[in-house]
């Protein structure tokens, strides 16, 4: 059973500090939403507010039932959400099966049905043969799966995942990501997942919510958010690249420190920021382009991520060969249609 999530004007104040302020978020039933933002953006607090673990104001509705609103505050145990805590919060004195049984008992699942449910949950997660073990007898990845199983076993209306891959190694994190995608498909649960890992967000999400400073800055599909960031902040946070000041001078034309560039004006005019991803830039033939200074080179498996500065503006491009650190380069825009204009007020 999955439900739509609707959040309006969500606010949370902790220790006199406004952690969340006017958060608006909508997630369709069965969709996989990822909240992406830097540390301290308020992502985990938002999850806790949805679960009812912190005092909040505003409106939260899961499906047709309002769990937070004027005069309404449904307690956490009655909200029907599954929660994967960042620190996992496993119970050291219970076995794997004990965790799931306790969760099913809380959801008032008949005892006769519990064994089936436990098997159905543990098998896809690959820990069915560990049912008698306690958390201290599990590896990091297995503990992660147990926490996930506990969050899913009662078939909650909404699953909240707080940085589910932050405490495991990259290989396990990739496994967990695959698992999450499968679970979303197989169980059809509505999932809201918070992370600061943009690759994870772009890989998993149906909808990405970019969050900073206690507010949602942009919501959209991964393509949208990556290709058409709504602000300079979002553009800087999502993906590699750089921003250049530009002036829109005509239909799809802009004046930039790299010269005249074709752009998608996005309905704007005048002074704008121009977002240039690495794939938009390349080394210019002799006599063309503008001079750029190499400031950093990183090997990225077969190619080099090269940070350059054009005047005072940092940009990034990908090269097949490693340039010398002090080597003067001449660069140019090679795929101008993909550049996007952003309002210069941020």
């Amino acid at each position: 059973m999955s439900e739509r999530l609707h959040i309006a004007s969500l606010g949370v104040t902790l220790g006199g500090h406004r952690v969340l302020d006017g958060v608006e978020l909508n997630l369709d039933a069965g969709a996989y939403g990822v909240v992406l933002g830097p540390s301290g953006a308020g992502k985990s607090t938002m999850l806790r507010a949805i679960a009812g673990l912190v005092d909040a104001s505003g409106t939260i509705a899961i499906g047709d039932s309002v769990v937070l609103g004027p005069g309404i505050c449904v307690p956490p145990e009655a909200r029907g959400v599954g929660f994967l805590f960042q620190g996992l919060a496993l119970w050291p004195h219970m076995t794997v099966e004990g965790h799931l049984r306790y969760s099913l008992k809380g959801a008032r699942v008949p005892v006769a049905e519990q064994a089936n449910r436990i098997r159905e949950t543990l098998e896809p997660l690959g820990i069915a043969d560990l049912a008698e073990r306690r958390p201290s007898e599990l590896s990091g990845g297995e503990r992660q799966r147990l926490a996930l199983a506990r969050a899913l076993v009662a078939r909650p209306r909404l699953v909240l995942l707080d940085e589910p891959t932050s405490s495991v190694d990259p290989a396990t994190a990739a496994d967990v990501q695959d698992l999450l995608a499968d679970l979303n498909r197989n169980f059809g649960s509505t999932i809201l997942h918070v992370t600061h890992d943009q690759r994870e967000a772009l890989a998993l999400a149906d909808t990405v919510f970019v969050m900073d400073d206690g507010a949602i800055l942009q919501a959209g599909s991964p393509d949208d958010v990556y290709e058409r960031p709504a602000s300079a902040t979002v553009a800087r946070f999502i993906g590699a690249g750089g921003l250049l000041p530009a002036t829109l001078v005509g239909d799809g034309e802009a004046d930039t420190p790299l010269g005249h560039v074709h752009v998608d004006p996005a309905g704007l005019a005048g002074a704008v920021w121009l977002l240039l991803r690495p794939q938009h830039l390349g080394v210019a033939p002799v006599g063309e382009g503008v001079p750029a200074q190499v400031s950093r080179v990183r090997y990225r498996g077969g190619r080099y991520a090269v940070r350059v500065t054009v005047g005072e503006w940092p940009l990034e491009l990908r090269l097949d060969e490693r340039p010398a650190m002090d080597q003067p380069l001449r660069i140019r825009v090679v795929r101008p249609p993909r550049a996007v204009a952003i309002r210069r007020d941020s």
Partner: protein
Amino acid sequence: MSWQGRSGLALVYGAVLLAPLAWVLVTAMEPGAGEAFSRATGRADLAGELATSIFLALLTTLFAVLLGLPLALLLNLRRFPGRGLVRSLYLLPLLIPPHIHTIAWTRVIGDKGWLKLWLAERFAWSPDVRAAIGEPGTDALLGHLYPGPAWIMACAYFPLVVLAVGAGLRSLDSEGVDAARLLGGRRAALRRVILPQVAPRLLAGAAFVFILSLTTYPVVSLLDTPTLVHRVFSVMSQAQGSLATATMVGLPLVIVAGAVIFGLGRIESRTGLAQRAGVAPAKRRAGVGTLVAVVLLLALSAGVPLGSLVYVAGPLNLSGAGDPDFYQQVFPRVDEAFAESLLITGIAVLALLILSWPLGRALARARGALAESVSLGALAFPPEILGVALLLIWSEAAAGVVPVWFTLLVALGVALPALLRRPVRESLIAYGALAGSLFALGMFVVESGLAETVQKRGFALIVLAYLARFLPFTVRMLRTGFQALDKDEEDAARLCGHGAVSRAINVVGPRMAGAVAGAAVMGYVLCFTELPATLHTIRPGWQSIQMRIFNMVHYQQIEEVCALCVMVVGMATIPVIVLVMLMRRRWDIL
């Protein structure tokens, strides 16, 4: 902390602690109180006695740190054979009541002690040790420094320093210590990294020792040391003295101890003690020097008093108190006091646990110096003052009103935070179950005749005194347990749809079992060995086992005293040994 939690905390502490104090202050300000004060204190040098109290407490603290700090460092940074045994043994002095420490030490180094007798016999040298031990009868310079009482109290209380510093050492980040060792060597790591980090813990342990020694009566009474606590007791004993006057005499001690407690609260809230979780630094293998140091420290602190008791009342003295027949003669004279002391201790421990659970939980979630200080507030009261205050508030005139008022306040304080929390249904079920259990227990008590005994002996007042005195200890133990319990674990259970009762039984209870057992044993030991507050709150005609021992000392029934002391120490030690064996948990109570 939520406002519900704060109000519950305030109500319970108000009922147990602040109300008696307010009652005392109001009584002390009645017309004629000043005159009564002058009459009762006469020409007493109260300022001098206060100075002596503070000096004695400082000297005790110094001795306790000298004993406790090295032992804590050795126990937590070195490994040696028998370390586990030593970890249990160092708690022994804490299980021996201060008056028994005094009795034991005076048997060894007192004016009629074995050391002096041995020196006289062997070397024909008979030094005047009265000044050193603090016994009366000399005005020598040493007599004004009171090293004897200070040493005896330090031996009784130094395990608090070991506990506090040990907890600090175990919460250190082992990688930080390793980094310091790599960069500057072992000694520099100890001096520059380890000690500065455990300094707040050391201060906390030292503050506990200071407060307890400032307000301990039995030691200064038996050694006749002119302290303010002693004066409080003598004012109460005078015909023209009054309870209110005695309280006024002791108020400076409350102020000094209160200031120390407030300072400790600030330190704890600033440094976030007990909220860190670390991995203890790796322990190095100990050399012979370490083993000798450990044995010496234990022998000095626990070996001497225990040895002297066992020497008199153990198998070495089969012709006297060591003879099993001797015990068969002594025990029937005190069996009723023993049994009733155990009964009252049981009731007090139950009450301590019931009150400590919500308070410990509230404190674990709270921050701020005030909450820390309030949680320690009861320690500021000398036990005599506490006994006096409770006697005043429980006087005959108020007897009909106060119990009801008190019960209501405590019940409201405990229940309020949960009753105001949603969902109400769960809270009602939880408190309905609690009320039902208490009712069943009450019925059992009434039907079994225990109620009559409790009523006849005035046990309620003593239980109240124990609650007010020892609540800070058990609250802190449970608070530490709650702090070690990740709040997310409880939230996870909540999100699984479980209410308060289910969470308490299935998640919080099993995780808190160690802390609850530790608090129960600590409560048992403290209540069973308590003397000064009992002295002032007990009804005429009944004596606790500690009072019997205390009175026997005055009648010079030394062999009986030592025999009873051995039994008391044994009864205090058995549950601790059982707990240590069963739980094998660390006693991070401070």
